[in-house]
């Protein structure tokens, strides 16, 4: 089983603060996704990164894929209460996994943004 480690496990911050969460693996990712999951719902895709060194922005969220494609980070600028949720990274480690959409998930970072 491929292992994805996410840190921190929990994060509680005030509205307006910045934060970064991390996703690491000992193996090279073929692709990596970030999802957000709200309580009682399924995860929803935020972004997919494929190329080492890639940076993608989604409003106040910035996603970075490591040069070696073994790690990724998610940075949120000026966090808002609406950002509260569980942030999950998921990766495919081989082209075959990618073909079958067979993704391995980290355990997530639970973010709470207080007003």
């Amino acid at each position, binding site marked *: 089983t491929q292992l*994805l480690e996410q840190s921190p496990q929990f994060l509680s911050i005030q509205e307006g603060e910045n934060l970064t969460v991390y996703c690491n693996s000992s193996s090279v990712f073929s692709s990596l996704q970030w999802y957000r999951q709200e309580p009682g*719902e*399924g995860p929803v895709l935020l972004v997919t990164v494929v190329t080492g060194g890639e940076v993608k922005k989604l409003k106040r969220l910035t996603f970075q894929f490591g040069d070696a494609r073994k790690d990724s980070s998610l940075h949120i600028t000026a966090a808002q209460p609406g950002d509260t949720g569980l942030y*999950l990274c998921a990766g495919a480690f081989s082209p075959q996994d990618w073909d079958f*959409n067979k993704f391995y998930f980290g355990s997530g970072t639970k973010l709470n943004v207080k007003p």
Partner: protein
Amino acid sequence: DVKVTQSSRYLVKRTGEKVFLECVQDMDHENMFWYRQDPGLGLRLIYFSYDVKMKEKGDIPEGYSVSREKKERFSLILESASTNQTSMYLCATGRGTEAFFGQGTRLTVV
């Protein structure tokens, strides 16, 4: 929009019961998945299917089976429910680099 619908949001079953969790998707995707989600453990793949009547074991298939008789429907079966199968169960479909999830079924086995 892709829609993945799970038949129940909440279920309570007794130990030893046979339990069926149903999932239906409306986007004609070949690949479908069942995960369970437990605090601190993330999502773990139970089974997946890449075509009708085709299935592959995931990382934790013990105590579960699946059925895919039609492309749009993928069922997870707990042959004899046990308390350690209390969990959130998530169905997903996949295409390209994206997985689309249902809303989840929170199963409690008492």
